[in-house]
């Protein structure tokens, strides 16, 4: 086992996380502004902005998985459990909303919000799992 496994893994993770989140905010703001300059937004621009906006978030997910892979064994267990909880919560939301739509209880739901639901569930699970140890 190498020394400083946890610290170096966390450093690598944060070194990737902050630039990605900054890039995400910049793309969202710049994209909204750019689209507002057109009366009829060009299709190619809409597609490009959608891909560019999603890319940092997707990269963040893989950075989280890399962190879980590189960190110490206990943190890995916590991270993967939190990831699983986030995934289970999100899939549950997909089925719940899906059936509400099938049975005409709700008209429409922005699929985009499943992303924040995952990150919220993942964050809450991480906090809960860590708090159980610190008590």
């Amino acid at each position: 086992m190498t020394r400083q496994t946890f610290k170096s893994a966390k450093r690598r993770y944060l070194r990737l996380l902050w630039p990605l989140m900054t890039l995400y905010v910049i793309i969202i703001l710049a994209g909204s502004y750019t689209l507002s300059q057109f009366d009829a937004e060009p299709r190619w621009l809409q597609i490009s902005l959608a891909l560019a906006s999603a890319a940092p978030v997707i990269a963040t997910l893989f950075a989280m998985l890399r962190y879980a892979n590189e960190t110490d064994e206990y943190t890995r267990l916590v991270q993967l459990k939190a990831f699983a909880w986030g995934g289970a919560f999100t899939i549950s939301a997909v089925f719940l909303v899906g059936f509400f739509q099938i049975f005409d209880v709700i008209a429409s739901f922005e699929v985009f919000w499943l992303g924040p639901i995952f990150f919220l569930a993942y964050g809450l699970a991480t906090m809960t799992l860590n708090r159980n140890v610190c008590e």
Partner: protein
Amino acid sequence: MKNCVRALRAERGWSQATLADELGVSRQSVNAIETGKYDPSLPLAFAIARLFNQTIEEVFDDTQPPNQSQNKP
């Protein structure tokens, strides 16, 4: 599994953070091991024992019955 990591650490006057740095793990990991909520892998258990100049058997007591709550952070 019961262990005497906390006692060994206290003997040396180390904080959990110091021990975590020595082992290359997080402070939460040390806390989880000390409180018996997490049983370390064999390589980490060897690293802990070696750090304190003890054998694994001297640090970890495997004669206790398994605890259902172990390794469930």
